[in-house]
């Protein structure tokens, strides 16, 4: 099971990074959401994995899943919504104000990329 969680974190992170490096606001926002999943799961996993031992106290039970990372991640999930919403309103504002949804101020990098592509052909 550990391998499943670790590899999921890895996959979420790498897709998240890839999307954050795109040139438009929407994929960047989606990428950040993916990074948020990855970070939250990582933090949660720092309490180590446990199955069928929720941290709800019951008589006679001694072993429980680590409650502390769970509490921290719970607020992190809610806050991540707030963060996403703020970033989205930035994105909307810049799109509506500027007429495009590019994340880069100038097109230097895009042009360079195109030029390279053309040169490649």
């Amino acid at each position, binding site marked *: *099971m*550990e391998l*499943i*969680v*670790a*590899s*999921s974190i*890895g*996959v*979420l992170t*790498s*897709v998240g*990074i*890839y*999307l954050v*490096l*795109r040139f438009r*606001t*929407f*994929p960047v926002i*989606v990428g950040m959401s*993916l990074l948020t*999943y*990855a970070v939250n799961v990582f933090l*949660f*996993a720092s309490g*180590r*994995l*446990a199955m069928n031992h929720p941290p*709800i*106290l019951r008589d006679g039970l001694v072993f*429980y*899943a680590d*409650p502390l990372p769970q*509490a921290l*991640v*719970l*607020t992190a*999930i*809610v*806050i991540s*919504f*707030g963060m*996403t*919403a703020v970033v*989205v*309103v*930035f*994105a*909307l504002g810049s799109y*509506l104000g500027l007429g495009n949804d590019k*994340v*880069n*101020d*100038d097109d230097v990098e*895009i042009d360079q*990329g195109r030029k*390279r*592509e053309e040169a*490649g052909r």
Partner: protein
Amino acid sequence: MSLVLIVLTPFLGALLPGLMVRTGRQTCAVVTLGVTLTALVGLISQAPAVLGGETVIQQIPWMPELGLNLNLMLDGLGLFFAALILGIGVLIIIYGRYYLAREDNMGEFFAYLLLFQGAMVGIVLSDNILVLLVFWELTSLSSFLLIGYWKHLPDGRQGARMALTVTGMGGLAMIGGMLLLGRIVGSYDLSVILENREAIQDSPLYVPALVLILLGCFTKSAQFPFHFWLPHAMAAPTPVSAYLHSATMVKAGIFLLARTWPVLSGTEIYFYLVAGAGLLTMLVGAITALFKDDLKALLAFSTISHLGLIVFLLGTGTDFGALAAVFHILNHAAFKAALFMTAGIVDHEAHTRDIKRLGGLARLMPVTFAIASIAGLAMAGIPLFNGFLSKEMFLEEAAHTEFFGPGLLVPVLATVGALFSAAYSFRYIGHTFLGRVRDDYPAKPHDPGMGMWGPPAFLCVLVLGIGILPGLVEPLVFFVARAVMGTEGQIPEGYHLAIWHGVTPALWMSVVAVLGGLALVLIYRAAAWLWAALHVPRAKSIFDGIIAGAVAASRGVTNGLHDGAFSRYAGVFMAAVLALGVHAWVTGESVAPSRETLPMTAAAIAGWALLVAAALALAVFHRNRLFALILVGILGLMVSLGFVVFSAPDLAMTQILVEVVTIILLLLALNFLPNDTPKETGGLKRAKDIVLAAAGGLATGGLAWQMLRSDFVAPTISDYHLENSYYGGGGTNVVNVILVDFRGFDTFGEIIVLGIAALVIYALTEALLAGPVRAKLYNRRPDKNLAGDRHPLMMVVLTRVIMPLVLLVAIYIFLRGHNMPGGGFIAGLVAAIALVMQYLASGFYWAEARQRYPYHGIIGAGVLIAGLTGIGAWFTGYPFLTSSFTYIHIPPIEEFEVASAMAFDLGVFLTVVGAVMLSLESFARLARRADQRESEHPMDIDPSRVEDRA
């Protein structure tokens, strides 16, 4: 009155002038005066103890771990300075009341003045040097506000900025110096530091600490080459100039030199640095002052010169020097404040401060003339005026001081300085008041009312009183001087303050200075011509050049690094984090894997496969944004399921609810944004990104893999939480107890952040709607076909029917949260979704019309309830947010538990509801369009619109 109250009085009082100014200028001034008088009376109430030889100390722990405590100390030196600050402050307030014009905002002025006063009093009463630094920086900031008080004048703004730059930089240096000093001694308390002279002077850190502290003192006290800010601070209203230059601001540096004198002085480096800078400053200031035509500029440079004199005296390191310095601080404060006030009166009455346009005012303004003459002659150092006494002591000290071996260098320079000092004093009196009465003054000068001449006249009484009968203040001066010298210093035996000390070298130097000064004024034209021909470089242009260079350099660096390409920053950031992580992994140690892994289950593998497939599909198909959202939804669902599998029911519920609102939010955003992402990156760029992304994924995945298989390096605190959750916190759901009890303060901060985020979204939306975007939004046409039935009947009915049910579920989840999975966060999200559904089904306007409380109010109420619950613990004598609980039995309901944490959780609940709703509602607000007419009946199908579209 306790020391803390004395310091706090001006700060608290600073609130009053702004409030009282509405009731009239007179009330405002009287209230301000009352504040300063209160502090002064408080100070006087402590005076008997101090004069009796006691050092009053008050200690309030603040951050004892850092050695930062609000320790205050009142000894002779502190008392002397605090009395000067508050005493002159009283006179300044009276004077300022009559000086300020009707259109000046008096409340603002006096508020700044009191802030400044409080900061100054704080400096002189601090025992802890860290606290002193705080007050020190506060004086820089509040003087910035005072100097720039006339915001409409560019001079004022530039002067204020220059003062802040120079004194602020000095302050930074001083922080370093003070920290070094505290490190040497091992304590940040002045009372301890002052007893460790040997330890400090023997330390290898002595020289750096000394240089840094001196930088702070010299910038504050306008010592050469940092003197140039002071004349530019003249753009301030004259009461400010009078205050800053006589008793405060510039005296802060002097105070600190005096305060640290017992431990820092006496070394060769101290002597050359301090005495040298002082003497040079005195000369530069005096010579420049003579050739200034602006009355206030003349006085400003004279202040620089006199500060140099005092610094020189302290720098000599002798007991006699310290005594003379203390005496001159007192004398200078008296005559300089009076002189500034006369300059202000002349400006006020004649509407000019330009000496070239003045002259002959003696007949028109006899009272002002008398005051200016008395104070001016004191500054010149004429017998029977107080300035004479301390100047004689200065010359006496100079006569016995040698730079670089025996020689006449110091006495000669001191005499030249005193000569110019006499000359500019005579010029101030002569060229302003004497001579023919002119007929071209910009205004008709006459003596002002008593409110303006009273304060300087009072100071003149002091000037004459001290000058004629120095014996009167001798005990005071000796007392303060002893406080400066510390335990080892001694007043020279048999020495008394007196006008006549016999025929000494100092007397001859004095005679030369006065006669030479008089002669210099008589040949002023020739001297001024010579001065102009010399083309002395102006400090301001040098300063401006340095600033321009610094701005250009930082702009170059900033523009080079920040070219606005976010993708590049993000790439650099990722690569840097990766590099750091690799470095840490290679150089650090890791624990060998020791945990047994859990066996895989088929369901888990299926979920994992779905997650990986969705993520990879997202990377490939992200250009189709709607599809991307669906894939994100799958990912969120898988993550929630993961939380279910790994024993985190609270997390699973939170994740899935947040997923719902996030998807709604992104759908709302997609309503405005384009539906597709164009392909604009080249293959190379994409390949680079893929490499970076793969490396990042491998790194985090590998790290997680390593972490999950190894045990905790240090014992976890979770066991404590598990053990105490029920008995200490009264709940069996440990996660919830941690949130509302153990780490309630964190949660409190987090709900505040959430509330702020929602308010930011609201504010940005409002800003968007207030700008040109509004029309664009309002007139836009939807880019895809819309359903003809905007509010489908089935959906409307369904959402309305289930709303009470959903709310009931929310209440249930809320109530059971302390013991079973649930709680304020989750219940808040459930309730928010119930409300959002109404918006979705019945439309924004329908929902808005039925909304009773604004969402901001709900956020505020939530934070308030949570905060009040925390404060409630204070009343039972426990720290903030200590929870308590009890069991209640109300028949016929089963016995249940009531915990104060539940009220806190209610605050969480309300904040979450308010924040989520305010964010989503803001986005919905943007969606308002011209072609959507609002109907009373949201369920109606609108055939006309269907035709429109076709």
